[in-house]
């Protein structure tokens, strides 16, 4: 999807690097050899004062020893509480979805009339519903739908929103930029659920239309984040240098803008994911999302309504897992943002 938003590990450069460039340096016989004679003071200078700059506050990015592994140590700084909790909660949901493909305690579609409406027992950890189906099994199956909806809708929003935002940011104050951003504002005025209801009215209720509708509704967020990030990147000297080096706009977008805004986009993705999870549950609860035989947390909530008095567990567990997923993705987003924003990082 998106590149990993951290510095690739500089402590492990390709071992062949030196071997590859060294012979090239000697073999490449330039017409005007820029190689200075042997006892040039420059080479000694460089190991003199250039490297003497020490970090004044311990966090200075201008860390001095290019041979030392200073960078990986700095990268480890970012593991804050939000990030850890977020990763754990998201991990629980992802793990359940993956395990459900290999193993579940029971068959989710098999009705066992004798085991109807049981509470939490050794056989049925989370109890059973009115047809005697195991709630834990359903929770496991439900996490698949939850993640599917999240992934597809975020992917739709990212794939459309980010390019639009980059285009708007690079043609800042042009007509195209105006059109994109005003269209964006229009879309933003539409609540995600309303859009999903319209879609289900037109295409019929189902997971597919819900995913597409949620994806479309999340486009504005991505476009805005991408645009503001792009404008920031476009005003830097390294983009100026790239323009001076004759790079065309698409190359600048791909080589400079995208890698530098990737972090912001990933954070936005995490937050949009949480919203999509919540919206899918809401839609299924209303009967406009995932349809009957497929297990879904929203639909479980809806079906549990009539038994709230007798079997509150039926509502408790789907609700709990919706909360875990939403909280997990939100915390993940927060944690990633804190970790990637150097201004916030300094305050910890």
């Amino acid at each position, binding site marked *: 999807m998106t590149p990993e938003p951290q510095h*690739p590990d500089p402590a492990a450069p390709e071992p062949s690097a030196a071997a590859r460039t060294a012979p090239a340096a000697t073999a490449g016989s330039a017409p005007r050899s820029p190689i200075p004679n042997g006892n040039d003071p420059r080479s000694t200078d460089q190991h003199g004062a250039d490297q003497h700059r020490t970090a004044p506050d311990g966090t200075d990015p201008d860390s001095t020893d290019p041979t030392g592994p200073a960078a990986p140590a700095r990268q480890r700084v970012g593991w804050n509480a939000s990030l850890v909790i977020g990763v754990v909660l998201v991990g629980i949901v992802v793990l359940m979805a993956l395990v459900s493909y290999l193993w579940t305690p029971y068959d989710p579609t098999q009705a066992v009339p004798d085991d109807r409406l049981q509470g939490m027992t050794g056989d049925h950890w989370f109890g059973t519903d009115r047809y005697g189906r195991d709630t834990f099994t359903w929770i496991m199956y439900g996490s698949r739908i939850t993640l599917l909806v999240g992934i597809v809708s975020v992917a739709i929003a990212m794939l459309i929103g980010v390019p639009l935002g980059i285009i708007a940011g690079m043609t800042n104050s042009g007509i195209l930029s105006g059109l994109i951003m005003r269209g964006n504002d229009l879309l933003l005025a539409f609540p995600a659920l309303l859009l999903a209801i319209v879609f289900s009215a037109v295409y019929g209720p189902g997971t597919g239309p819900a995913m597409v509708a949620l994806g479309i509704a999340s486009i504005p967020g991505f476009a805005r984040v991408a645009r503001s990030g792009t404008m920031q990147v476009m005003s830097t000297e390294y983009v100026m240098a790239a323009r001076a080096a004759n790079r065309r706009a698409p190359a600048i977008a791909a080589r400079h803008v995208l890698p530098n805004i990737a972090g912001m986009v990933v954070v936005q993705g995490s937050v949009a994911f949480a919203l999509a999870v919540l919206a899918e549950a809401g839609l299924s609860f209303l009967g406009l999302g995932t349809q009957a035989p497929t297990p879904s947390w929203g639909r479980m909530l809806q079906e549990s309504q009539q038994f709230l008095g007798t079997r509150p567990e039926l509502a408790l567990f789907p609700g709990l897992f919706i909360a875990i997923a939403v909280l997990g993705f939100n915390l993940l987003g927060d944690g990633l943002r804190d970790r990637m924003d150097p201004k916030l990082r300094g305050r910890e």
Partner: protein
Amino acid sequence: MSTPHTPAARDTANGGPATTDSTADAPLVAVEDLTISAGGRTLLHPTSFAIGAGERVGLIGESGSGKSLTSQAIMGLLPQELTARGSIALAGGSGNLLQQSESQLARLRGREMSMVFQEPMSALNPLMRVGDQVAEVMRIHRTAGAARARERAVELLDSVRLPDPAAAARAFPHQLSGGQRQRVMLAMALANSPRLLICDEPTTALDVTVQAQVLELIGEAVERENTGLLFITHDLAVVAGVCERVMVMYRGELVESGTSEQIFTDPQHEYTRGLLAASDLTATDARGRLFTIATAAQYHSGAEAGSDTDSDPGRTTGAATSTPAGEATRGGVGTSADPDAPLIEVTDLVKTYRRTKSSLFGRADEVPALGGISLSIPAGRRFGIVGESGSGKSTLLKILSGLDTPTSGRVRVGDVEVGSAGEAELRRMREDLQIVFQDPFASLDPRMRVADIIAEPLVPMGVAAGERRSRVADVLQAVGLDADSAQRYPHQFSGGQRQRISIARALVCRPRILVADEPVSALDVSVRAQVLNLLTDLVEEYALTLVFVSHDLGVVRHLCSDVAVMRGGEIVESGPVEEIYTDPQHPYTADLVAATPTLAAVFADAGSDPRERP
């Protein structure tokens, strides 16, 4: 409202005998074995020094040497993750400042001791009128009532020579220029007549002519109030002009301290000698290169030669000057390449920026950046453009390199008319003309490997990957970086090394013209000398035509053969650099030359030293 807090001490601070008594007893500030560490790493090794009342002490060192940490420790402003040990005692105060609580320190800050920061832009509250900000300092410490504080604020603004202080008091920070803001900062710092004033690089962000005025103001104010001054800077010439005693810091250690004359004429520590040599742009070694820390041994102190500076401007005796050496190479290249027509020709260039409309019905403001500039640069010359901020020099560069379009006028680079050129022509022109940017931290993409950064100009030229790699390796070697630098990321390099990378990127496609936009102004003195030497070497090796933009006349004088002085979007004067420097025709050029602090000038002037004025 009178102050409840040690009124006696305050009242005697300005008067004669009591002050001398207190200085005789103990120094104003005594720092003993101050050690600052972060985690297990020691950032400042045990350091001891003292500042007497009314004494002006300079603290010099490169970035990261610990000089700012020292001042922050005195003010109690160290970041929380750092720990400080040792003792800092303020005369008449209650013991070790390092052990005092935040509220105790808060009573001292802005009252007994105050600080002027480097960035006047960010040190003032943008939403408060400056008069209120000055008055606030007095109200917080209850040294004046609200009405009295407002009056006194205007007086203070007057005393730092802001024109029309009453109007200035009503202004917001953004309505003032950088120099004016720094004056406001100074007025705030002096509001409560502190006994100690700490200035942390107060003039680094200012233009030279403004710098001279602010320095003079600081000197006067300190004199008037008998305030102790701790002046932190990396600029040796500034320290020499302001301070009577100088301390030199290097890698978290105080390596040398003594009177200004001692330090600058007879430096004992190797590093001090190197720093002096590297900062002297008028002295060159036998190859016509600036001295660096490594070659400082051959350097003879500029101050010794100070007396004959006026008669023999520039070059230390015995050293071959860079100009003749450069001339020889240049002559050959110039004639062989293009005998008659200048390589770059600018005629009546006008650039006007249109500000975005501030209101729906308002007219868009037009801001003139360049008002009809003409210049021509022959091939092989090293052409300097000097001007202060806002003079239009950067705009000129952008238009020259085709990154911006002129409003009117003609710009010709080689055989390309930049103003009217199509995209294809512009692309061809850019292959011939490359830029080195000012800020080595901003001009390299943090997410690209050095090899990709340097190879970037080659990609649009369609150079194959293998060829790209070998050219990157060549050029890395040419700028004095290791071959394995190619696989690292920019954050792993120091400022000077990054600027080398930036230069390597500019040279990798073998341009004919190198445009440098203040390439050394963000670098430390010792690194500056290395980068300037590198540029000199490369200009010769690659037979480049150099267009070098700077605010620093000294740098341009060393590096360039010709210079144009810009002010307010116009060229006020241009010609051979030595001529302009020694015999400026335009009053502005003369001001600029006079305002540029040099060590030689400070010591040549010692007789009429401003410090010795009553």
